[in-house]
């Protein structure tokens, strides 16, 4: 029967696509409207975009690259390495005579990358884990969530540092370590949402037509979780950046010649007694501003997507 109607279906589809779209307000359009009305969130989005653009475009305007050493300045950064346009060191230099402007641009790239990739891993693992636990239910759910409870009670910063020492300090290891440790919260949230979705009619319909369990999770449950996941993902990014900066501040994270906000703050903080505050304050300003932006964007998204406060 269905095969016989194939032409008819194609015809119908054509008719439908030809129709003018009804001017309805979808969930997402609604959310976008609410988000754009939140001034703090919009300003934050603009500022954050500017920081991202700076990190990629900035190096083209820099006089000195991030690895070059200005031999004229080396050793006397306090007197000759000040921020100035004449020397080409817009943000000054560090003690070795390296240009802070270029290094901040590089550090911004790496910190943001760690934040986004770490959050991505956490979201991926947490969503799948939580969705499976919530969908399967029963004893599997019990065991999976007790495991999360147990893992949550472990002070992970220490375990992460252990991992970095054991497996070597590389950015890749940082990604994996930070991402794998941060999925726990995510999985709890996702499980809760899944529990409320899984008894809806469309899931029942999918099950009745014989769709496999895994496919139901990936095709029907996960897309319906996206709103919640998006909100927590934006709030995860600053958390990841904080973790990375913390570890880099201790000198155990990102290693030379690469750098990150945490590593730059650490360097700057180590030399403040020599009157070279710019080494601390420029990276610090970027770090603090970006975190602010992420929090405001996250709040804005939550207000926009969370049906509770509508």
């Amino acid at each position, binding site marked *: 029967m269905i095969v016989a109607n194939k032409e008819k279906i194609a015809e119908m589809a054509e008719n439908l696509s030809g129709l003018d779209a009804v001017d309805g307000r979808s969930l997402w359009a609604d959310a976008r409207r609410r988000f754009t009305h939140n001034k703090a969130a919009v300003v934050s989005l603009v500022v954050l975009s500017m920081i991202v653009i700076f990190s990629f475009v900035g190096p083209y305007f820099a006089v000195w690259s991030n690895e070059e050493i200005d031999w004229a300045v080396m050793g006397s950064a306090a007197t000759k390495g000040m921020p100035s346009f004449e020397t080409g060191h817009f943000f000054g230099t560090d003690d070795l005579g390296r240009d802070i402007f270029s290094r901040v641009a590089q550090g911004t790239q790496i910190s943001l990358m760690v934040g986004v990739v770490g959050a991505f891993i956490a979201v991926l693992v947490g969503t799948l884990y939580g969705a499976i636990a919530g969908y399967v239910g029963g004893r599997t759910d019990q065991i999976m969530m*007790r495991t999360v*409870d*147990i893992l949550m*009670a*472990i*002070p992970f*910063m*220490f*375990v992460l*540092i*252990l*991992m*970095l*020492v*054991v*497996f070597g300090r590389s950015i890749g290891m940082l990604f994996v370590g930070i991402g794998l440790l941060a999925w726990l919260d995510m999985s709890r949230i996702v499980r809760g949402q899944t529990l409320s979705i899984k008894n809806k009619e469309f899931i029942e319909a999918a099950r009745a037509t014989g769709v496999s369990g895994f496919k139901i999770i990936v095709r029907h449950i996960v897309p319906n979780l996206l709103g919640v996941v998006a909100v927590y993902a934006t709030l995860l990014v600053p958390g990841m950046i*904080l973790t990375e*900066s*913390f570890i880099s*501040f*201790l*000198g*155990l994270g990102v290693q030379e010649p690469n750098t990150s906000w*945490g590593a730059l*703050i*650490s360097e*700057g*903080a180590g030399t*403040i*007694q020599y009157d070279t*505050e710019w080494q*601390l304050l420029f990276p*610090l300003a970027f*770090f*603090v501003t970006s*975190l*602010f932006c992420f*929090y405001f964007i996250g709040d804005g998204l939550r207000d926009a997507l969370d049906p509770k406060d509508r």
Partner: protein
Amino acid sequence: MLNYVIKRIAIAIPTMLILIIISFLLMHSAPGGPFTSERPLPPQVLANIEAKYGLDQPLWRQMVNYVWGVTTEFDFGPSFKYKDRTVNEIIGQGFPITLKYGFWSFVFAIGIGIPLGAIAAIRQNTWIDYLAVGVSIGAQVLPNFVMAPLLVITFTLWLGWLPGGGWSGGSIEYLIMPVIALSTSYMASIARITRSSMLEVLNSNFIRTAKAKGLPSRTILLRHALKPSMLPVISYLGPAFVGLITGSVVIDIYFSTGGMGYFFVNSATNRDYSVMMGITILVGFLTIMFSLVVDLLYAWIDPKIRY
């Protein structure tokens, strides 16, 4: 209640064992042992040293020995780098220092955070409220490793009021900056949580009833509003404790206070595995104990939980 306590402890024990096993296995998968150096030792000498530390036994045997030693006698074994010191001695030296400023940070975070949040909620939309909200938003992006250098710039380099580091028995001028640096962001979070939960409670029906009965606002706040609005704060104390103990690593490094964090980072750079493991396990133990206490406290306060 007793059932709940037993159930809660029954979860804490396997958690502890898993932590010990994870850190043990991590340490043993490390490439290069503690005695690998540029000049390789003669094999006979190496074998002797390994026999002394019990490293020649099969892995499971070492693990059982270690777990047994830790759980029955709190014995974390010898340090691999400082041959004359045990891990217990190192922890014994660092822990009291961490405990002292950690305790004051905790007191500071709660003692300032809760009143700040409560006042902001009671005087909602006044300048006090805006000030409290402003402070707590600002402090959110000021983690310990940002606060520490800013404090040193302000109070040591510009004003010259406080010493920039050191401990000297933990006298007050050495204690102020570590405590502020460590507790600011948690103080802010506690204030924010207190404010929002207090607002929710103050708008609920039973408070309206109390007002309608003509109770003085002082009684309403202290007798009826305070207890239920503390619940979210109590459940935040667990994460805050983890945050404080983790942050102490930065404090020890930056202010040279000589607490456990110093030994942790030092052993991380020296690959002194037994010290790292000992500190990780101790911190894990404290965390698990603390979250146990918090859960029991929560269960005791929250009237909705029945056993």
